[in-house]
Protein backbone atom coordinates (compact mmCIF):
# COMPACT_ATOMS: atom_id res chain seq x y z
CA UNK A 1 0.00 0.00 0.00
CA UNK A 2 1.63 3.20 -1.12
CA UNK A 3 -0.35 6.15 0.07
CA UNK A 4 1.96 8.72 -1.45
CA UNK A 5 2.70 6.90 -4.57
CA UNK A 6 1.02 5.31 -7.50
CA UNK A 7 2.39 2.23 -9.17
CA UNK A 8 -0.14 2.39 -11.93
CA UNK A 9 1.74 4.43 -14.51
CA UNK A 10 2.41 2.36 -17.60
CA UNK A 11 6.15 2.14 -18.03
CA UNK A 12 6.86 2.21 -21.70
CA UNK A 13 10.53 1.50 -21.25
CA UNK A 14 13.20 1.02 -18.63
CA UNK A 15 15.62 3.80 -17.99
CA UNK A 16 19.27 3.27 -17.55
CA UNK A 17 22.16 5.60 -17.38
CA UNK A 18 23.30 7.95 -20.07
CA UNK A 19 20.09 9.93 -20.32
CA UNK A 20 21.85 12.78 -22.05
CA UNK A 21 21.46 10.88 -25.31
CA UNK A 22 18.93 12.52 -27.60
CA UNK A 23 17.58 9.36 -29.18
CA UNK A 24 16.19 8.06 -25.96
CA UNK A 25 12.53 8.97 -26.37
CA UNK A 26 10.03 6.15 -26.49
CA UNK A 27 9.00 4.69 -29.80
CA UNK A 28 12.19 5.84 -31.50
CA UNK A 29 11.09 9.47 -31.22
CA UNK A 30 13.71 11.77 -29.85
CA UNK A 31 13.11 12.88 -26.30
CA UNK A 32 11.99 16.37 -25.32
CA UNK A 33 14.42 19.28 -25.36
CA UNK A 34 15.28 20.04 -21.73
CA UNK A 35 15.88 23.67 -20.91
CA UNK A 36 17.16 24.73 -17.47
CA UNK A 37 16.36 28.13 -15.99
CA UNK A 38 18.66 29.36 -13.24
CA UNK A 39 19.45 32.67 -11.56
CA UNK A 40 19.28 34.59 -8.29
CA UNK A 41 16.23 34.57 -6.02
CA UNK A 42 13.38 36.67 -7.36
CA UNK A 43 14.95 37.54 -10.72
CA UNK A 44 11.88 36.31 -12.59
CA UNK A 45 12.49 32.62 -13.36
CA UNK A 46 8.95 31.56 -12.57
CA UNK A 47 7.55 34.59 -14.40
CA UNK A 48 9.63 33.56 -17.42
CA UNK A 49 8.40 29.97 -17.23
CA UNK A 50 4.80 31.15 -16.94
CA UNK A 51 5.13 33.54 -19.87
CA UNK A 52 6.88 30.89 -21.99
CA UNK A 53 4.08 28.43 -21.33
CA UNK A 54 1.47 30.98 -22.33
CA UNK A 55 3.39 31.92 -25.48
CA UNK A 56 4.20 28.40 -26.63
CA UNK A 57 1.55 26.04 -25.31
CA UNK A 58 -0.62 26.24 -28.43
CA UNK A 59 2.20 25.18 -30.72
CA UNK A 60 4.28 22.92 -28.44
CA UNK A 61 3.75 20.18 -25.88
CA UNK A 62 5.38 21.55 -22.71
CA UNK A 63 6.00 20.34 -19.16
CA UNK A 64 7.66 22.04 -16.19
CA UNK A 65 9.79 20.86 -13.25
CA UNK A 66 10.20 23.34 -10.39
CA UNK A 67 12.90 23.06 -7.70
CA UNK A 68 11.32 24.90 -4.84
CA UNK A 69 13.58 25.64 -1.92
CA UNK A 70 11.24 25.35 1.01
CA UNK A 71 7.58 25.50 0.04
CA UNK A 72 5.87 24.50 -3.20
CA UNK A 73 5.40 28.18 -4.02
CA UNK A 74 6.59 28.10 -7.63
CA UNK A 75 4.67 24.99 -8.60
CA UNK A 76 1.57 26.39 -6.92
CA UNK A 77 1.96 29.75 -8.65
CA UNK A 78 2.05 28.03 -12.02
CA UNK A 79 -0.99 25.96 -11.11
CA UNK A 80 -2.89 28.99 -9.84
CA UNK A 81 -2.07 30.91 -12.99
CA UNK A 82 -3.22 27.84 -14.93
CA UNK A 83 -0.40 28.18 -17.43
CA UNK A 84 -0.48 24.41 -17.91
CA UNK A 85 -2.69 21.54 -16.73
CA UNK A 86 -1.63 20.18 -13.32
CA UNK A 87 -0.28 16.90 -14.69
CA UNK A 88 2.33 18.84 -16.64
CA UNK A 89 3.92 20.44 -13.56
CA UNK A 90 6.13 18.57 -11.05
CA UNK A 91 7.89 19.95 -7.96
CA UNK A 92 11.20 18.53 -6.72
CA UNK A 93 12.72 19.10 -3.29
CA UNK A 94 16.42 19.85 -3.04
CA UNK A 95 17.45 19.60 0.63
CA UNK A 96 18.81 23.13 1.12
CA UNK A 97 21.13 22.77 -1.84
CA UNK A 98 19.48 23.93 -5.08
CA UNK A 99 22.65 23.89 -7.15
CA UNK A 100 23.47 20.31 -6.12
CA UNK A 101 20.15 19.17 -7.56
CA UNK A 102 20.85 20.66 -10.99
CA UNK A 103 24.57 20.00 -11.24
CA UNK A 104 26.29 17.52 -8.89
CA UNK A 105 23.47 15.09 -8.21
CA UNK A 106 20.72 15.40 -10.77
CA UNK A 107 18.93 12.18 -9.75
CA UNK A 108 15.68 13.66 -8.47
CA UNK A 109 15.32 16.06 -11.39
CA UNK A 110 16.03 13.34 -13.95
CA UNK A 111 13.44 11.15 -12.31
CA UNK A 112 10.87 13.95 -12.51
CA UNK A 113 11.72 14.54 -16.17
CA UNK A 114 11.39 10.85 -16.99
CA UNK A 115 8.11 10.53 -15.17
CA UNK A 116 6.67 13.48 -17.10
CA UNK A 117 7.86 11.97 -20.34
CA UNK A 118 6.39 8.58 -19.47
CA UNK A 119 3.05 9.94 -18.32
CA UNK A 120 2.54 12.52 -21.04
CA UNK A 121 4.03 10.66 -23.98
CA UNK A 122 5.03 13.12 -26.64
CA UNK A 123 6.65 16.24 -25.22
CA UNK A 124 8.57 18.88 -27.14
CA UNK A 125 10.07 20.90 -24.31
CA UNK A 126 10.60 20.40 -20.58
CA UNK A 127 11.43 23.59 -18.66
CA UNK A 128 13.37 22.96 -15.43
CA UNK A 129 13.39 25.90 -13.01
CA UNK A 130 16.18 25.81 -10.46
CA UNK A 131 15.63 27.12 -6.96
CA UNK A 132 16.88 30.71 -6.64
CA UNK A 133 20.61 30.51 -6.12
CA UNK A 134 23.90 32.29 -6.64
CA UNK A 135 25.90 33.32 -9.67
CA UNK A 136 27.83 30.03 -9.81
CA UNK A 137 24.78 27.83 -10.42
CA UNK A 138 24.81 25.92 -13.69
CA UNK A 139 22.91 22.92 -15.04
CA UNK A 140 24.65 19.62 -15.72
CA UNK A 141 24.57 18.55 -19.37
CA UNK A 142 23.16 15.29 -18.07
CA UNK A 143 20.01 17.16 -17.05
CA UNK A 144 19.58 20.15 -19.39
CA UNK A 145 20.39 20.46 -23.08
CA UNK A 146 20.44 24.24 -22.84
CA UNK A 147 20.33 26.72 -19.98
CA UNK A 148 18.88 30.15 -19.53
CA UNK A 149 20.23 32.39 -16.78
CA UNK A 150 17.80 35.02 -15.52
CA UNK A 151 19.01 38.10 -13.65
CA UNK A 152 17.17 41.37 -13.17
CA UNK A 153 18.03 45.05 -13.29
CA UNK A 154 16.91 45.59 -9.69
CA UNK A 155 19.56 43.21 -8.36
CA UNK A 156 22.21 45.75 -9.30
CA UNK A 157 23.47 46.81 -12.72
CA UNK A 158 26.94 45.50 -11.88
CA UNK A 159 25.81 41.85 -11.90
CA UNK A 160 26.83 41.18 -15.54
CA UNK A 161 30.27 42.59 -14.77
CA UNK A 162 30.66 40.28 -11.77
CA UNK A 163 30.45 37.28 -14.07
CA UNK A 164 30.40 33.71 -12.75
CA UNK A 165 29.45 30.59 -14.72
CA UNK A 166 25.75 31.49 -14.99
CA UNK A 167 26.54 34.84 -16.58
CA UNK A 168 29.46 33.77 -18.73
CA UNK A 169 28.42 30.34 -19.98
CA UNK A 170 24.60 30.15 -20.06
CA UNK A 171 23.18 29.62 -23.54
CA UNK A 172 20.88 32.60 -23.09
CA UNK A 173 21.21 35.42 -20.57
CA UNK A 174 17.96 37.18 -19.76
CA UNK A 175 18.31 40.56 -18.06
CA UNK A 176 14.77 40.93 -16.76
CA UNK A 177 12.60 43.74 -15.36
CA UNK A 178 13.87 46.45 -17.67
CA UNK A 179 10.62 48.28 -16.82
CA UNK A 180 12.13 48.93 -13.38
CA UNK A 181 15.38 50.42 -14.69
CA UNK A 182 14.36 54.08 -14.26
CA UNK A 183 13.13 53.41 -10.71
CA UNK A 184 16.29 51.69 -9.49
CA UNK A 185 18.73 53.79 -11.48
CA UNK A 186 20.03 50.85 -13.51
CA UNK A 187 22.14 51.63 -16.57
CA UNK A 188 20.82 49.21 -19.21
CA UNK A 189 23.47 50.09 -21.76
CA UNK A 190 26.23 49.31 -19.29
CA UNK A 191 24.54 46.00 -18.42
CA UNK A 192 24.32 45.06 -22.10
CA UNK A 193 27.93 46.07 -22.70
CA UNK A 194 29.23 44.15 -19.66
CA UNK A 195 27.20 41.09 -20.65
CA UNK A 196 28.65 41.14 -24.13
CA UNK A 197 32.17 41.46 -22.75
CA UNK A 198 31.59 38.44 -20.50
CA UNK A 199 29.76 36.29 -23.03
CA UNK A 200 31.37 36.84 -26.39
CA UNK A 201 29.01 35.45 -29.02
CA UNK A 202 26.46 34.00 -26.60
CA UNK A 203 23.10 35.80 -26.80
CA UNK A 204 21.69 38.18 -24.18
CA UNK A 205 18.21 39.72 -24.12
CA UNK A 206 17.13 42.71 -22.07
CA UNK A 207 13.42 42.52 -21.48
CA UNK A 208 10.54 42.63 -19.02
CA UNK A 209 8.90 39.22 -19.22
CA UNK A 210 5.74 40.41 -17.47
CA UNK A 211 5.12 43.20 -19.97
CA UNK A 212 3.06 42.50 -23.11
CA UNK A 213 5.30 40.87 -25.71
CA UNK A 214 8.20 40.89 -23.26
CA UNK A 215 8.67 37.13 -23.50
CA UNK A 216 8.90 37.10 -27.32
CA UNK A 217 12.70 37.13 -27.64
CA UNK A 218 12.96 34.26 -25.15
CA UNK A 219 10.18 32.28 -26.85
CA UNK A 220 11.88 32.80 -30.21
CA UNK A 221 15.13 31.52 -28.77
CA UNK A 222 13.34 28.36 -27.53
CA UNK A 223 11.85 27.83 -30.99
CA UNK A 224 15.31 28.09 -32.55
CA UNK A 225 16.86 25.69 -30.05
CA UNK A 226 14.04 23.23 -30.59
CA UNK A 227 14.41 23.41 -34.38
CA UNK A 228 18.15 22.72 -34.05
CA UNK A 229 17.47 19.92 -31.56
CA UNK A 230 14.92 18.26 -33.79
CA UNK A 231 17.15 18.55 -36.85
CA UNK A 232 20.33 17.44 -35.09
CA UNK A 233 21.80 13.94 -35.09
CA UNK A 234 20.00 11.60 -32.70
Amino acid at each position, binding site marked *: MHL*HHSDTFPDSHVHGSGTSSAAEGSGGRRRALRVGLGGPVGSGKTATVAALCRALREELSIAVVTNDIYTREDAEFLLREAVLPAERITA*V*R*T*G*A*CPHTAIRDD*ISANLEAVEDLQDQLGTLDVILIESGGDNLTATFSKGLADAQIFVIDVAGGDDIPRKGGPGITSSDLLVINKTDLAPHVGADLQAMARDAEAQRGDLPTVLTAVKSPGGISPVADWIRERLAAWTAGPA
Partner: protein
Amino acid sequence: MNRAALLVLADGRFPAGGHAHSGGAEEAVTAGRVRDVASLEAFCRGRLHTAGLVAAGLAAAAAAGYDPLLLEEAADARTAAPALRYTSRRLGRQLLRAARAAWPCAALDALATARPRGAHQPVVLGLAARCAGLTPLDAAHAATYESIGGPVTAAVRLLRLDPFDATAVLARLAPDMDHVAAEAADAAQRVQADGPAALPAASAPLLDITAEQHAVRGARLFAS
Protein backbone atom coordinates in the same frame (compact mmCIF):
# COMPACT_ATOMS: atom_id res chain seq x y z
CA MET B 1 37.55 -7.80 -4.85
CA ASN B 2 38.07 -4.13 -5.30
CA ARG B 3 38.03 -2.34 -1.97
CA ALA B 4 38.41 1.18 -3.34
CA ALA B 5 35.01 0.78 -5.01
CA LEU B 6 33.55 0.91 -1.50
CA LEU B 7 34.88 4.44 -1.12
CA VAL B 8 33.23 5.44 -4.39
CA LEU B 9 29.91 3.85 -3.42
CA ALA B 10 29.84 5.24 0.12
CA ASP B 11 31.01 8.74 -0.82
CA GLY B 12 28.40 11.35 0.01
CA ARG B 13 29.05 12.80 -3.43
CA PHE B 14 27.96 9.62 -5.17
CA PRO B 15 25.07 11.04 -7.26
CA ALA B 16 22.19 8.93 -6.05
CA GLY B 17 19.81 11.56 -4.70
CA GLY B 18 20.67 11.24 -1.01
CA HIS B 19 21.53 14.92 -0.55
CA ALA B 20 17.84 15.89 -0.59
CA HIS B 21 16.95 13.50 2.25
CA SER B 22 17.53 13.97 5.97
CA GLY B 23 16.69 10.46 7.24
CA GLY B 24 14.13 11.88 9.65
CA ALA B 25 16.48 14.55 11.00
CA GLU B 26 14.45 17.47 9.66
CA GLU B 27 11.30 16.38 11.47
CA ALA B 28 13.29 15.70 14.64
CA VAL B 29 14.76 19.21 14.41
CA THR B 30 11.31 20.71 13.82
CA ALA B 31 9.97 18.88 16.87
CA GLY B 32 12.92 20.08 18.96
CA ARG B 33 14.23 16.60 19.69
CA VAL B 34 17.45 17.23 17.80
CA ARG B 35 18.80 20.66 18.74
CA ASP B 36 22.54 20.31 19.38
CA VAL B 37 25.48 17.95 18.93
CA ALA B 38 24.54 15.71 21.86
CA SER B 39 20.95 15.19 20.74
CA LEU B 40 22.14 14.64 17.15
CA GLU B 41 24.43 11.89 18.41
CA ALA B 42 21.59 10.24 20.32
CA PHE B 43 19.36 10.44 17.25
CA CYS B 44 22.06 8.89 15.08
CA ARG B 45 22.78 6.10 17.54
CA GLY B 46 19.11 5.18 17.59
CA ARG B 47 18.78 5.31 13.84
CA LEU B 48 21.94 3.27 13.32
CA HIS B 49 20.81 0.43 15.57
CA THR B 50 17.31 0.26 14.05
CA ALA B 51 16.85 1.51 10.48
CA GLY B 52 20.60 1.27 9.86
CA LEU B 53 20.80 -2.33 11.04
CA VAL B 54 17.81 -3.37 8.93
CA ALA B 55 19.20 -1.64 5.83
CA ALA B 56 22.61 -3.22 6.39
CA GLY B 57 21.09 -6.71 6.65
CA LEU B 58 19.17 -6.29 3.40
CA ALA B 59 22.20 -4.81 1.64
CA ALA B 60 24.49 -7.59 2.84
CA ALA B 61 22.03 -10.26 1.71
CA ALA B 62 21.73 -8.66 -1.73
CA ALA B 63 25.50 -8.43 -1.96
CA ALA B 64 25.71 -12.12 -1.05
CA GLY B 65 23.62 -12.94 -4.11
CA TYR B 66 20.27 -13.60 -2.46
CA ASP B 67 17.24 -13.05 -4.73
CA PRO B 68 16.63 -9.27 -4.78
CA LEU B 69 12.91 -9.69 -5.36
CA LEU B 70 12.58 -11.78 -2.20
CA LEU B 71 14.57 -9.10 -0.40
CA GLU B 72 12.14 -6.54 -1.78
CA GLU B 73 9.36 -8.34 0.08
CA ALA B 74 11.54 -8.56 3.17
CA ALA B 75 12.14 -4.80 2.97
CA ASP B 76 8.42 -4.11 2.65
CA ALA B 77 7.74 -6.27 5.69
CA ARG B 78 10.34 -4.27 7.65
CA THR B 79 9.14 -0.85 6.48
CA ALA B 80 5.81 -0.14 8.11
CA ALA B 81 5.35 3.52 7.16
CA PRO B 82 4.10 4.18 3.63
CA ALA B 83 6.12 7.41 3.51
CA LEU B 84 9.30 5.47 4.21
CA ARG B 85 8.47 2.80 1.62
CA TYR B 86 7.95 5.51 -0.92
CA THR B 87 11.22 7.22 0.01
CA SER B 88 13.13 3.95 -0.04
CA ARG B 89 11.87 3.06 -3.52
CA ARG B 90 12.56 6.51 -4.90
CA LEU B 91 16.09 6.48 -3.54
CA GLY B 92 16.48 2.93 -4.82
CA ARG B 93 15.48 4.03 -8.30
CA GLN B 94 17.93 6.92 -8.19
CA LEU B 95 20.73 4.72 -6.87
CA LEU B 96 20.00 2.16 -9.58
CA ARG B 97 20.59 4.77 -12.25
CA ALA B 98 23.92 5.84 -10.76
CA ALA B 99 25.04 2.27 -10.07
CA ARG B 100 24.24 1.09 -13.61
CA ALA B 101 26.39 3.89 -14.98
CA ALA B 102 29.21 3.19 -12.53
CA TRP B 103 29.21 -0.64 -12.55
CA PRO B 104 27.24 -1.93 -15.58
CA CYS B 105 25.96 -5.36 -14.68
CA ALA B 106 23.20 -7.75 -15.81
CA ALA B 107 21.87 -8.12 -12.27
CA LEU B 108 21.23 -4.37 -11.97
CA ASP B 109 19.59 -4.31 -15.41
CA ALA B 110 17.33 -7.18 -14.40
CA LEU B 111 16.27 -5.42 -11.20
CA ALA B 112 15.51 -2.23 -13.15
CA THR B 113 13.33 -4.24 -15.54
CA ALA B 114 11.52 -5.99 -12.70
CA ARG B 115 11.04 -2.78 -10.69
CA PRO B 116 10.86 0.14 -13.14
CA ARG B 117 9.45 2.46 -10.47
CA GLY B 118 12.19 1.59 -8.04
CA ALA B 119 13.34 -1.17 -5.71
CA HIS B 120 14.08 -0.61 -2.02
CA GLN B 121 17.28 1.36 -1.64
CA PRO B 122 19.18 -1.10 0.61
CA VAL B 123 18.50 -3.92 -1.85
CA VAL B 124 19.85 -1.82 -4.71
CA LEU B 125 22.80 -0.81 -2.57
CA GLY B 126 23.70 -4.44 -1.88
CA LEU B 127 23.34 -5.44 -5.51
CA ALA B 128 25.43 -2.45 -6.60
CA ALA B 129 28.11 -3.51 -4.12
CA ARG B 130 28.04 -7.01 -5.60
CA CYS B 131 28.38 -5.64 -9.13
CA ALA B 132 31.27 -3.47 -7.95
CA GLY B 133 33.06 -6.56 -6.68
CA LEU B 134 32.47 -5.82 -3.00
CA THR B 135 31.64 -8.21 -0.16
CA PRO B 136 28.43 -8.45 1.89
CA LEU B 137 30.29 -6.89 4.82
CA ASP B 138 31.33 -3.98 2.59
CA ALA B 139 27.71 -3.47 1.57
CA ALA B 140 26.66 -3.53 5.22
CA HIS B 141 29.28 -0.90 6.01
CA ALA B 142 28.01 1.34 3.22
CA ALA B 143 24.43 1.00 4.50
CA THR B 144 25.33 1.74 8.11
CA TYR B 145 27.42 4.76 7.21
CA GLU B 146 24.70 6.10 4.96
CA SER B 147 22.05 5.62 7.65
CA ILE B 148 23.66 8.33 9.79
CA GLY B 149 25.81 10.26 7.32
CA GLY B 150 22.73 11.81 5.71
CA PRO B 151 21.12 12.96 8.99
CA VAL B 152 24.39 14.52 10.16
CA THR B 153 24.78 16.54 6.96
CA ALA B 154 21.14 17.62 7.17
CA ALA B 155 21.55 18.69 10.81
CA VAL B 156 24.57 20.81 9.89
CA ARG B 157 22.39 22.68 7.40
CA LEU B 158 19.27 22.88 9.57
CA LEU B 159 20.89 23.83 12.89
CA ARG B 160 24.02 25.60 11.65
CA LEU B 161 26.04 23.13 13.72
CA ASP B 162 29.81 23.42 13.66
CA PRO B 163 30.76 20.94 10.89
CA PHE B 164 33.77 19.72 12.87
CA ASP B 165 31.59 18.81 15.84
CA ALA B 166 29.10 17.10 13.54
CA THR B 167 31.81 15.04 11.85
CA ALA B 168 33.14 14.06 15.25
CA VAL B 169 29.71 12.51 15.94
CA LEU B 170 30.25 10.19 12.98
CA ALA B 171 33.76 9.39 14.13
CA ARG B 172 32.56 8.56 17.65
CA LEU B 173 29.92 6.25 16.22
CA ALA B 174 32.40 4.43 13.97
CA PRO B 175 32.84 1.48 16.39
CA ASP B 176 29.04 1.18 16.55
CA MET B 177 28.91 1.16 12.77
CA ASP B 178 31.48 -1.64 12.65
CA HIS B 179 29.46 -3.63 15.13
CA VAL B 180 26.15 -3.14 13.31
CA ALA B 181 27.71 -3.97 9.93
CA ALA B 182 29.22 -7.17 11.33
CA GLU B 183 25.89 -8.22 12.86
CA ALA B 184 24.13 -7.57 9.56
CA ALA B 185 26.69 -9.48 7.53
CA ASP B 186 26.45 -12.41 9.96
CA ALA B 187 22.70 -12.53 9.52
CA ALA B 188 23.09 -12.36 5.74
CA GLN B 189 25.21 -15.53 5.87
CA ARG B 190 22.21 -17.37 7.25
CA VAL B 191 19.73 -16.09 4.71
CA GLN B 192 20.31 -18.82 2.10
CA ALA B 193 19.53 -21.50 4.69
CA ASP B 194 16.90 -19.75 6.80
CA GLY B 195 15.32 -17.28 4.40
CA PRO B 196 14.75 -13.55 4.92
CA ALA B 197 13.50 -14.15 8.47
CA ALA B 198 17.18 -14.46 9.39
CA LEU B 199 17.69 -10.78 8.62
CA PRO B 200 17.41 -8.09 11.32
CA ALA B 201 13.94 -6.61 11.77
CA ALA B 202 14.51 -3.86 14.33
CA SER B 203 11.99 -1.06 14.19
CA ALA B 204 11.98 2.62 15.13
CA PRO B 205 8.32 3.58 15.62
CA LEU B 206 9.09 7.24 16.19
CA LEU B 207 10.93 7.43 12.85
CA ASP B 208 7.89 5.80 11.20
CA ILE B 209 5.46 8.26 12.77
CA THR B 210 7.54 11.35 12.14
CA ALA B 211 8.18 10.30 8.53
CA GLU B 212 4.43 10.39 7.97
CA GLN B 213 4.19 13.80 9.63
CA HIS B 214 7.06 15.15 7.58
CA ALA B 215 5.61 13.88 4.32
CA VAL B 216 2.52 16.08 4.63
CA ARG B 217 4.32 19.19 5.81
CA GLY B 218 4.05 22.03 3.31
CA ALA B 219 7.20 23.90 4.23
CA ARG B 220 10.33 21.75 4.42
CA LEU B 221 13.76 21.63 2.90
CA PHE B 222 14.24 17.89 2.62
CA ALA B 223 12.27 15.31 0.71
CA SER B 224 12.30 13.00 3.75
